[in-house]
């Protein structure tokens, strides 16, 4: 793993978040190389969203530090924010603005050059053309997700953070979004960090998976490597082993069961 802040898109050191008696994130350290797709995987309360919040500067860490694209986020996060973006189903765009108006406002906030051209480009690629001048509140959930993705890509970010990017979407639209994200990463050489519960999504998109439980990183590796390590058939089984605290003991048990069945 490369730990140089110059080459890592994300670098977290001893990141901790304490809420009164509860420790949401417990001294985690990790780095994410540029151009990769990494997934934060964990059950509810594992600390994924808090970790994303601390990376973005929305939550102040109790301890530890964050470097995004080489910039220390505790010192001057605004120096790097124009190179980053974020999408979450829990954050919305103003519903009374049209899709085009929303993209225009965020394009100006990010100082996007040739903004009109960029909006047309995104509208084509994300299939927003038919409802570009419709109020955002009057389009479907799937269309809203595509618009939110348009906002997240408006500044062609070098680092894109995504919180459950395909939550509440039908499988077709979800798959399409994943294809677009992968396509964007390849075209731009961008780094993607996503928090997700969707195992298929993680298996398909991520080069690397960080598994979290109770605010700690309990394992990390490529999806295939994790499946092999735990002796399971799918990432979902691995997730269940980790979430239920079976860990590698569960993997041994699974291997024994498999042998017995054979």
């Amino acid at each position, binding site marked *: 793993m490369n730990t140089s802040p110059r080459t890592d898109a994300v670098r977290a050191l001893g990141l901790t*978040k304490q809420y009164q008696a509860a420790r949401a994130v417990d001294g985690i350290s990790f780095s994410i190389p540029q151009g990769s797709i990494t997934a934060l995987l964990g059950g509810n309360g594992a600390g994924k969203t808090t970790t994303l919040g601390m990376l973005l500067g929305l939550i102040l860490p109790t301890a530890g530090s964050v470097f995004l694209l080489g910039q220390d986020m505790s010192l001057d996060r605004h120096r790097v924010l124009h190179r980053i973006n974020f999408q979450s189903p829990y954050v919305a765009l103003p519903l009374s603005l049209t899709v085009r108006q929303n993209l225009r*406002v965020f394009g100006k906030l990010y*100082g996007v050059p*040739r903004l009109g051209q960029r909006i047309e480009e995104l509208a084509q*690629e994300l299939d927003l053309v038919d*409802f570009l001048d419709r109020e955002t509140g009057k389009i479907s959930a799937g269309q809203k997700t595509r618009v939110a993705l348009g906002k997240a890509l408006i500044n062609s970010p070098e680092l894109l953070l995504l919180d459950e990017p395909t939550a509440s979407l039908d499988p077709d639209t979800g798959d399409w979004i994943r294809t*677009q994200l992968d396509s964007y990463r390849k075209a731009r050489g961008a780094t993607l960090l996503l928090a997700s519960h969707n195992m298929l999504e993680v298996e398909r998109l991520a080069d690397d998976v960080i598994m979290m439980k109770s605010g700690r990183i309990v394992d990390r590796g490529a999806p295939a490597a994790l499946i092999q390590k735990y002796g399971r058939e799918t990432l979902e089984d691995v997730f269940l082993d980790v979430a239920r605290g079976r860990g590698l003991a569960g993997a041994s048990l699974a291997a024994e069961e498999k042998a017995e069945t054979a």
Partner: protein
Amino acid sequence: MNGTVSSPSSVAPGSLGSDHSAARPRYRAFSLERVGAMVLRYVYVLRSSWPRLLELMYWPLLQLLTWGFLQQYLGQQSLHQQSSVPGGALADGALGMTGRVLLGSVLLWEVLVRGQLGFNMSFLEEMWSRNMANLLISPLSRLEFVLSMLSMSVLRVLVSIVPITVLAIFFFDYNLWSLGVGLGAFFVNLMMTGWALAILTSGLVLRNGMGAEGLVWSMMFVLMPLCCVFYPVNVLPPFLQHVAWALPPTYVFEGMRLLSTQHLFRWDLMLQAFAINVVLLSLAAVAFSKLVDSARRTGSLMSIGE
């Protein structure tokens, strides 16, 4: 899905960043374009809904009508006294003038309230639409965000108050603009006080969530009896007079009464109000910054609007 639906699957994945990557955004510590973007965002909201535009004028109009008719009633009573009481000219002057001063007070009070709400409404738009996190992770700085809401406050006040002052001339023969240069000084001071309160209440909402929204609507009215909007400061008990003189609007309303009744414009009152306003705005800015930092510590920014 609503309306016309095109299957996204029918669109082949393209290179979402390739053409554009050559022209990347650059870092700028302060950007008027970002302030303009936020102003544009709020103008879009206003333009999208005629009830919102109507709402801007609704309360000021109601206030004008209520107090305008009261002024007319007081004027009629003055005439009645003048005709029935020997030597009633003095009473006429006092009562008639009181009615006119009340109308001036109402209009200036509306400047104060609309100045605060003009800022707060823009802020609340972001809370209601769950857009705040999008803004906080964008390059928009706190200063730029605040400046955009100040700009919208001025715009909203002008849209809501200017037509009302024109109506006051036609319907009640009261010309607020006749206060001349004094009106400019009153306006600046009232807007500054409104902004100080708006910045503070916005910080409280950001820190404590929508449960604190009530403060936005009510806090100014707590100050109303102390600002001596409709009566002179010397009406208050002595200990409350000290409190009143700590509030800039008190100087404005006293100044307006002097200008209306004695044609005397007191610059010293306006300068004192301005000085207190500078202190209040500075304190509000510090409080806002601390409340945002506190919200970041408690993690409440992640759950805004939920």
